[in-house]
């Protein structure tokens, strides 16, 4: 996969050598222009109708004869696209054809093939089947024009008409749409590059976008760092950064039944708790939550914190069951330790983790009384999912066009047997260093009791060249577990399954199969023959051309910021600190606010996390996991969180919030004071928060409200502007 990546950069290099050299001349950094070309869908001459013909006419060369025709549903059609520059291996699955009908419903047509035209290599012929694959709406009646556009790497082409069953109908062309006729020579559109106003990585929009994906929010300091050293060196720095910056909470293991002096007894006379915060700190996730947010606000190893958070949102355990903070800390330590390690080690460590063992019942699953909870979820939720996937994450289909199950109940039963016989680490001696008499040991890995292990032969996952499909009888349970984890790890679904989820958490909710495939390829082989190298996977996710670029225009690109990211991003933009006057760091106590937005951190309601990776947004019919928790109620709570932070603060001085949390608006206030037109204020916020995507219309709307405040109130103006940006859907959706 290294070769593909170097090919990518070589191709971009050749395409943009002029720009690249310009950048090179002022710095020695190695990141080229991140912007891909914007595809252009070719129209009929002097018309807003897509140039299109049947596949058998493809390449006939006589395009002037194709005119104004309609195509039957489910037929195949060739569309023509230019202004592309493909990597080796980049094919049909890098493209999406988005369709809107006269009723405003959205569809997606599958792209079956892409070829260059002989002798006119700057033209690409896209073979498309006129059949919706989103499946959200009943397919439109074939009775008139629909609008089609082509998206590639998050960039959308112009939209043109296509006769669907018939031509005509009531659909309206886009405002400002113009014909884009067949170019006789290559089109040379310059990509949207920025002036060389600084050394290093000069793409300011992409710097901010990158930091939204790789951290808990851009800060001026990080932006400056990346501007100087570029993305790749920054990634290497992060891979080696010490973690955590703030030490993990460290509370002792406690008995399952809380003792009277740790709030276990509420009937009078209730003995005082020792210390007074005993119950809160040991029997709730409070210290983990505050630590988590402090690390997000101030930690140096941002990328590891971010990836560990993503991993913990599909390898889920929850404070709903795992009641002690020390359990969750032991679990999170495994997530962070393995975030840049090998995925197979992560599988092993979590399988043996007592918190997971308790959460999904493996710790009480025995030969005679098996429990299938962990066996099912390690397949369904953590590693392979329900259906066989292609390497680009798309579903494999059988001869009847049905998805192919990855396993059945019998498989679950067999894995259940594999995972029997494990118990908490309670032996005296070196193997259980954290053992605490009287308290269950939820820190050290579980130990096998072979007597409780089911030693029958087992049949595990079957797949082409399956590893360890059959497990012989009478094996040691530990040996068997390793064989079974390998059986899962080498399943072909693991790479696309894990890659897609991580892309969704870091970059975009509905990645193209090509993007998933490129990341899965790295998962399968990091270039040195190693499978499961998460460092390489994360690098590929963040440097992929579908992730990078100053601006993304594909209407289906981006992701709703989950509550954690919305909160930390907003606070980090403006120097998050303790409550006013803010002379110290925040105490990190913002979980009540984040919880009200639908994400009670470390208390996922179920093993399915706060939201499903497969959640489909009603209306557009797109994958949008975080929309699973965006409701009328949480939408307003998000707005109210912004209001609290911009116009007020989270007060300090209480037991749970000794220091409080506020943001520092002095710089924005000074900008508003220095320029009574407020243009500089809005332009700065546009760069800082919107990476330059604020439209003239957005700006005019915000400006009206800003100027409704007198110029003598620069703080009020700064607040109004920040409130309006942060509450806007344009900001709440990370693009």
């Amino acid at each position, binding site marked *: 996969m290294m070769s593909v990546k170097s090919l990518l950069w070589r191709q971009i290099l050749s395409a943009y050598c002029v720009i690249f050299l310009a950048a090179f001349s002022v710095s020695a950094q190695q990141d080229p222009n991140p912007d891909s070309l914007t595809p252009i869908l070719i129209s009929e001459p002097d018309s807003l109708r897509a140039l299109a013909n049947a596949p058998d006419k493809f390449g006939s060369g006589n395009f002037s004869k194709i005119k104004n025709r309609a195509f039957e549903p489910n037929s195949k059609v060739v569309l023509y696209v230019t202004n592309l520059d493909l990597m080796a291996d980049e094919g049909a699955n890098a493209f999406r054809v988005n369709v809107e009908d006269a009723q405003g419903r959205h569809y997606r047509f599958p792209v079956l093939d892409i070829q260059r035209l002989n002798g006119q290599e700057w033209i690409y012929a896209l073979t498309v089947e006129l059949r919706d694959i989103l*499946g*959200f*709406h009943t397919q439109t009646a074939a009775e008139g024009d629909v609008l089609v556009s082509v998206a590639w790497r998050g960039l959308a082409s112009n939209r043109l008409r296509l006769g669907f069953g018939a031509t005509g109908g009531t659909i309206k062309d886009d405002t400002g749409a113009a014909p884009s006729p067949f170019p006789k020579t290559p089109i040379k559109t310059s990509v949207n590059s920025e002036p060389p106003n600084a050394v290093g990585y000069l793409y300011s929009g992409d710097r901010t976008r990158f930091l939204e994906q790789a951290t808990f929010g851009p800060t001026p300091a990080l932006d400056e760092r990346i501007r100087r050293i570029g993305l790749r060196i920054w990634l290497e720095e992060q891979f080696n950064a010490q973690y955590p910056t703030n030490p993990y909470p460290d509370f002792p293991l406690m008995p399952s039944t809380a003792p009277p002096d740790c709030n276990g007894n509420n009937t009078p006379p209730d003995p005082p708790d020792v210390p007074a915060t005993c119950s809160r700190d040991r029997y709730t996730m409070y210290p983990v939550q505050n630590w988590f947010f402090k690390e997000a606000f101030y930690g140096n190893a941002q990328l590891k914190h971010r990836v560990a958070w993503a991993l913990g949102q599909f390898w889920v355990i929850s404070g709903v069951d795992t009641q002690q903070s020390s359990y969750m800390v032991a679990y999170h330590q495994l997530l962070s330790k393995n975030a840049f390690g090998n995925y197979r080690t992560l599988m092993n460590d979590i399988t043996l983790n007592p918190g997971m063992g308790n959460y999904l*019942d493996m710790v*009480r699953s*025995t030969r*005679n*009384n*098996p*429990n299938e*909870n962990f066996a*099912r979820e390690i397949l*369904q939720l953590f590693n392979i999912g*329900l259906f066989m996937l292609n390497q680009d994450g798309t579903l494999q289909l059988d001869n009847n066009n049905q998805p192919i*199950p990855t396993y059945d*109940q019998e498989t*679950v039963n067999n894995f259940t047997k594999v995972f029997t016989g494990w118990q908490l680490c309670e032996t005296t001696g070196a193997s259980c260093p954290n053992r605490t008499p009287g308290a269950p040991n939820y820190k050290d890995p579980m130990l096998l009791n072979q007597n409780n292990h089911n030693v029958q032969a087992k049949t595990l996952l079957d797949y082409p060249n399956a590893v360890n499909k059959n497990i012989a009888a009478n094996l040691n349970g530990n040996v068997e577990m390793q064989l079974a984890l390998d059986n899962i790890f080498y399943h072909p679904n693991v790479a696309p399954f894990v890659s897609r989820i991580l892309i969704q958490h870091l970059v975009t909710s509905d990645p193209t199969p090509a993007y998933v495939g490129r990341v899965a390829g790295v998962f399968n082989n990091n270039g040195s023959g190693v499978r499961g190298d998460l460092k390489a996977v994360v690098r590929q996710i963040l440097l992929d051309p579908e992730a990078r670029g100053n601006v993304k225009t594909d*209407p289906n690109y*981006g*992701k709703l910021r989950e509550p954690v990211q919305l909160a930390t991003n907003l606070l980090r933009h403006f120097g998050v600190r303790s409550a006013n006057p803010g002379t110290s760091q925040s105490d990190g106590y913002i979980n009540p606010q984040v919880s009200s937005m639908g994400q009670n951190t470390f208390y996922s*309601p*179920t*093993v399915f996390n706060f939201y499903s990776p497969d959640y489909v*947004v*009603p*209306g*557009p*019919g*797109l994958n*949008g996991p975080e*929309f*699973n*928790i*965006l*409701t*009328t*109620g*949480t*939408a*307003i709570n998000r707005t*109210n969180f912004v*209001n*609290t932070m911009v116009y007020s603060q989270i007060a300090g001085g209480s037991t749970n919030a000794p220091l409080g949390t506020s943001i520092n608006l002095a710089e924005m206030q000074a900008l508003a004071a220095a320029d009574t037109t407020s243009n500089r204020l809005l332009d700065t916020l546009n760069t800082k928060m919107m990476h330059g995507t604020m*439209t003239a*219309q*957005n700006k005019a*709307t*915000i400006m*009206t*409200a800003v100027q*409704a*405040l007198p110029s003598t109130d620069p703080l*009020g103006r700064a607040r*109004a502007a920040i*409130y*309006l940006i942060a509450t806007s*859907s*344009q900001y709440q*959706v990370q*693009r």
Partner: protein
Amino acid sequence: MKQDRREFIKKSSCALGMAAIATQVEHFGLMSALAQKTDDGMDFNPPSDYRALVCVFMAGGNDGNNTVIPNHSDASLSNYQSYAAARSAQGLALAQNTLLPISVPRMNNLTYGLNPNLGILPPSGTTIINNGIHELWAQGKMAIATNVGTLVAPMTRAQYQNGSIRRPFQLFSHSDQVSQYQGGRADTPVYTGWGGRVSDLRTAPDNPGGLIPMITSINGAQLFTAGNTTLPLAIASATTPLAQVLNPQGFNTTAASQARLAAFNQLRTQDLGANYIKAASHITDQAMIANQALGSNPQEVTVPFPTTTIGNQLKQVARIIKKRGDLAVNRQIFYVQIGSFDTHNNQIAGQGNLLAQFSQAVRSFNDEMIAQGASNNVTLFSMSDFSRTLNPAGVGAIVGSDHAWANHMFIIGGAVNGGNFYGVNTSNGTPYPTLTMNGPDDADSGSGARGRWIPTTSVEQYAATLARWYGLPEADMQTVFPNYNNFLGNTNLGFMQP
């Protein structure tokens, strides 16, 4: 309840708290459908009465085998002894003298038993505020639909085993079985719920001018409530007053504040070509419209509710029902949820506690509906992921059970033909399954069979009986339930009065 276009626009722009912005209204699916219809000069003939369905989802898979139990010794059917034989050794059988008796006409008037936590509880632990739901059986206000589950088409054990009838996909998996229950379809994943699809079809005719969506969830976004063209209202439970659940804070009446509010609203009319932005804006729009309606004329319930999660959810539902006139709605669907039924361990205490919470909260809701004079207009029903294996998981105090299939559901309200079992007969000639591992109703086979009952009544049959009472025309049944025709002849289970 006739309403013309001008009045409609006036109401909706008021609701936005700003001068009329027609562009804003334009992209509400619900609103534009209404505006369109009035434009065509059509009169609405909305229903003259009020009806509401309240779905209580018992998340995690409530163990039906310990919810409705044979309490008789009739040897021709599974009796208490057959139940105890399967569960008592591991400690999962409930003692017979603790069961709450119910007489069941459909079972030859044999006695069955409810879990003891569904009735009068000892005054310890949680605060007990009423007698629970057991009494409603004798009052004829509570029915039980038995052996209900996800099906693609009716299926015998032989057909299940030989694969001649298609099985629901991913049986025994939480997420998929929840989706099939809530989606009303078991052969393929769906993106909308049956509640949402009813809302798509019935909002315009039933709730013209409704100021909130037809569906309200007090438990966040759920598949059940998702429609193609309509969105649910999702709000916090009764710990937050209705006037506060959707209120954007920080605005006052000064010109500058109003200008900021106008800009806040205006931004949601921009960049709608980007689909995620449009979707987020749409949800906030819905919230802003509903906020105006919910914020006025507060109503409080008069019956005490337990302060549990489910109690607070049902209390919020009751408040909204009390405000139904202000909200201009004739038909409403509600979704509430009680979680943690996934009792792989510690089931006796865990499920018992949850059923007590369920029973207390539902009884309060029932009594509040009577107090509001709405008992005959509101029907509460239960759903759950699946039932659990008859064969226990583990042993002793920690004993639990694993994921299974067919389950028993409660239907409660004044319009219910209560005091009986409903459903399609199993192989034993009654609607209650045979409690035998590897027996005639078990999906499992062989010596390792654990007792996962094959449903005889589909989710569709159960839901269609409810939807028909709600007012969904027969012609629309197949739109809402795509596999409806697979169950023809048995699509009205009879537990609702006409």
